[in-house]
């Protein structure tokens, strides 16, 4: 189970305080999943970052009763001077996983070839995205945080991500954040909408979609 209770997040800007999340509540049981719809700038990524623990809420609390991933496919969590392989070792060490059985999978999935043993700073955007995704799959989390807007790559890469995540790991929980209702309809059993810092929960994806359409026109 993962739950966020009364979480608010404000940022200090030159024009004063800006509230991005306003007393947000959300609960997810083990093995379930939820989609979060929101326009650009609605606070989706902030919510994901707070869920992952990369950022702290201004107030409220997060209870993680399961092993929560970092935001998937995010390429920024690397040490650029280390090679892809060293980054795999680092991530595995941090999460207490043996890296050796994972090398073959990472090699196969990323298709990086010799570049797996080159510093990440020499990678293209697509290469680091592939590595980032593979690393998130190397650690077997109970709950994946997916920021759809972060995933860049061709349709083949998208398909392979979908296979890894929604086919091979369909017993896991996930929270999928997207501005594309079709993505959420395709993968999620329920949905909510993030709008003006508030979260609106709906029993079905269709109702969430209807609200999203009317609220964000």
């Amino acid at each position, binding site marked *: 189970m993962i739950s966020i209770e009364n979480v608010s997040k404000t940022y200090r800007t030159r024009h004063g305080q800006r509230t991005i999340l306003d007393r947000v509540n959300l609960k997810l049981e083990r093995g379930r999943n939820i989609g979060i719809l929101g326009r650009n700038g609605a606070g989706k990524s902030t919510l994901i970052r707070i869920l992952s623990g990369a950022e702290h809420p201004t107030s409220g609390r997060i209870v993680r*009763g399961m092993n929560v991933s970092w935001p998937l496919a995010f390429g920024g*969590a690397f*040490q650029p001077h280390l090679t892809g392989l*060293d980054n795999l070792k680092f991530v595995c*060490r941090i999460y207490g996983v043996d890296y050796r059985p994972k090398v073959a999978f990472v090699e196969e999935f990323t298709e990086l070839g010799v570049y797996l043993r080159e510093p990440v700073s020499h990678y293209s955007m697509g290469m680091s995205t592939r590595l980032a995704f593979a690393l998130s799959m190397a650690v077997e989390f109970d709950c994946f945080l997916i920021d759809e807007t972060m995933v860049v790559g061709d349709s083949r890469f998208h398909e392979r991500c979908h296979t890894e995540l929604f086919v091979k790991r369909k017993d896991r929980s996930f929270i999928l954040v997207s501005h594309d209702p079709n993505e959420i309809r395709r993968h999620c059993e329920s949905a909510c909408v993030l709008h003006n810092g508030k979260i609106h929960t709906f029993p079905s994806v269709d109702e969430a979609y209807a609200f999203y359409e009317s609220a964000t026109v």
Partner: protein
Amino acid sequence: MEQVSTTFLASLRVQWRVIRALLMREVITRYGRENLGVLWLIVEPATFTLGVSALWTAAGMNHGSSLPIVAFAITGYSSVLMWRNTASKCNSAIHQNFNLLYHRNVQVIDVFITRIILELAGTTASFTLLSLFFIGFDFISPPVDILQVIEGWLMLAWFGASLGMLLGAATAYSELVDRIWHPTSYLLFPLSGAAFMVEWLPPPAQEVVLMLPMVHGVEMVREGFFGDTVRTHYNTGYMALVCLCMTLIGLVLVRDAGRRVEPP
């Protein structure tokens, strides 16, 4: 680790895991796998110490005393490296590990602990090896009181660690900290007791210089090295008190810095 309530022991295990991973990362990124690799950790400070010893010997600066110049240089310069390197490495710690803070288990304090361990270990290793080398070749005589040397050295290590944490956390508030630290460290060097003994100064100057905590540490190390041939001035209690205060303030700042720093 991801249980709803985490026991202290489990947290400790996670912390150790993270620090170990960070140590390996630091060693690889800083020293690489090529040429000397991790040996640079020792060679780097050793080169400095050797260079300074050579310069001082060549300049014939025997400071109007009969002290062996090499032993004087080694004790002095190693002591400076103890706090100066630790502080400057901690100053860049948040910036250089920014991306890694993205992982929930990697906290700002882990990054500091890692750098402090590496710097203290490197300087201690170079100090020990250099001393053994010169003692082995009869350039200097062994310390009169080894325990006293260790005590002084540990005090300097504590000072270095607390200074590193304090300044490193302060960089989360303002980048000015690092800019100001550079000139300050150069100004502190001649005052730190590395190149003089407190005894050689006129009493009013002694009082001023003894306000700096690291001077006490160097004096302790030198008393251990030279024994009764030198007259030393230090107050372990004073140095401990300053270090304790710095540690406490440092820990508070580190905790707050963890909330301020927002990874990419």
